[in-house]
């Protein structure tokens, strides 16, 4: 099977085979980061532009390193001090960057659909690094990769995604990917943070983490995104932590091999206690390492799909 997709805009657009192809490729690339010289020439002569219109630490660094490990040249755009503040449109900014000979654009933006718009207007490959509340496909991939690595399979694996489902692009990408690969997903959180329509995606809804935690193999605790909430959707962080935070008691109720995940950055004491975050069940740092391999895989595959055959 050959990889033919030109862009990575979301996991909704990928089929099961394409998802597996990215995961398998990431598995092959993981070894590169264990070498003493952590660099391969696969993207030599290619240029990757990172366009981050929203703050990011780990995703931006992970994309940078992924491009560098594959020997690509890298340019970065910072929103502050750019021509956007002089009134230039998004498409003009992106077109100007493309005119410098860029092959791939990684874009993060607070508006859903920006990567799709760029894909329509630019010739280079577009990678969605998070668009509003829509999708964050590489985070979804690295979460799925980590579950597969830990449990050996995704078929029949029961995953609980806990927290702010309404505002979470991570949840959406995880749901699209996990369901296609045979996992069962339950979303857990306060009713104000779970839109009822989410059930149409094929997930179960739970408002009780204490019950759900007993039945699942994986719990993925999402960050409470204060910046995306127009108003408070729960009375207090303290109450949220009491009802939906992962703590020692909930860990005891769960299977002893429960896989605990968090896309970061963690609000310790809110989504999970420090004890859980640092427990042997936690794979949070593995997620970060795997993110690098998954992003390298995406670059590698998209680079190939730019070839006319």
């Amino acid at each position, binding site marked *: 099977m050959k990889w033919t997709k030109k862009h990575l805009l979301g996991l909704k657009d990928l089929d099961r085979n394409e998802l597996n192809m990215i995961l*398998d490729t990431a598995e092959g690339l993981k070894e590169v980061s264990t070498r003493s010289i952590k660099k391969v020439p*696969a993207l030599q002569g290619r240029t990757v532009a990172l366009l981050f219109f929203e703050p990011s630490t780990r995703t931006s660094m992970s994309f940078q390193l992924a491009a560098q490990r*594959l020997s690509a040249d890298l340019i970065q755009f910072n929103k502050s001090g750019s021509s956007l503040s002089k009134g230039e449109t998004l498409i003009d900014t992106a077109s100007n960057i493309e005119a410098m000979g860029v092959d791939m654009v990684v874009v993060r933006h607070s508006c859903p659909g920006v990567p799709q718009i760029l894909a329509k207007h630019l010739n280079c490959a577009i990678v969605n690094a998070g668009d509003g509340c829509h999708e964050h496909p590489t985070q979804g991939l690295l979460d799925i990769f980590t579950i597969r690595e830990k449990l050996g399979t995704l078929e029949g694996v029961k995953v609980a995604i806990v927290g702010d489902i309404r505002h979470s692009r991570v949840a959406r990408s995880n749901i699209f990917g996990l369901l296609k690969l045979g996992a069962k997903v339950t979303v857990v959180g306060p009713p104000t943070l779970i839109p009822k329509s989410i059930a149409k995606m094929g997930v179960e809804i739970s408002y009780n983490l204490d019950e759900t935690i007993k039945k699942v193999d994986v719990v993925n605790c999402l960050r409470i995104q204060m910046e995306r909430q127009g108003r408070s959707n729960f009375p207090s962080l303290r109450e949220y932590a009491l009802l939906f935070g992962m703590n020692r008691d909930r860990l005891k109720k769960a299977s002893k091999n429960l896989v605990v995940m968090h896309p970061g950055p963690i609000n310790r004491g809110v989504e999970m206690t420090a004890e859980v975050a640092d427990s042997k069940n936690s794979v949070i740092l593995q997620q970060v390492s795997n993110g690098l391999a998954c992003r390298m895989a995406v670059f590698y595959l998209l*680079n190939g799909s730019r070839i006319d055959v």
Partner: protein
Amino acid sequence: MKKYLDSEELNKIIKQLSVKILQNCGDNFCLLGVRKGGVKVVDALAKELQNKTDKLDVGYIDVSLYRDDIHKRLPDVPLEGTDINFSLENKTVILVDEVLFTGRTIRAAIDQVMALGRPRLIRLVTLVNRHGRELPIQADYVGLTIEESHTNKIEVIYNGGEDDGIYFTNNSQIS
């Protein structure tokens, strides 16, 4: 597809190659199978050599990331990855491939080996040496040489079954 060589002859060639390695490569060597075709050959060689050396290191390299045509063809998927869990420093690294044809895969393999360490020597074993070199690369140990038209395909099946052998289309000669 026409059978050119059967499993008995194939096994004989593997035995002969293993003897050549033992005679010429000292005791500080390791075998690296070049994915994908070289994997079955290196495993067969390792089986022959395992009781004849004190310690045998066997690894696999995936040269996809080092290919010179990486920007000209759709990517090899899935990427199987390089799997070497020992040091290459000061070793005699024996690259093992199934068919040596243009030499471009081996160029990529050498580049990758050099990125992984500094071996004392690199040697090349190929089961089939096929004419059509595009780079100045030659094998040190050759199973057999086949003259075959560029348009025809040579396929090696080596799974331990009845179908084992070397296959290709017509118009071939052995030298």
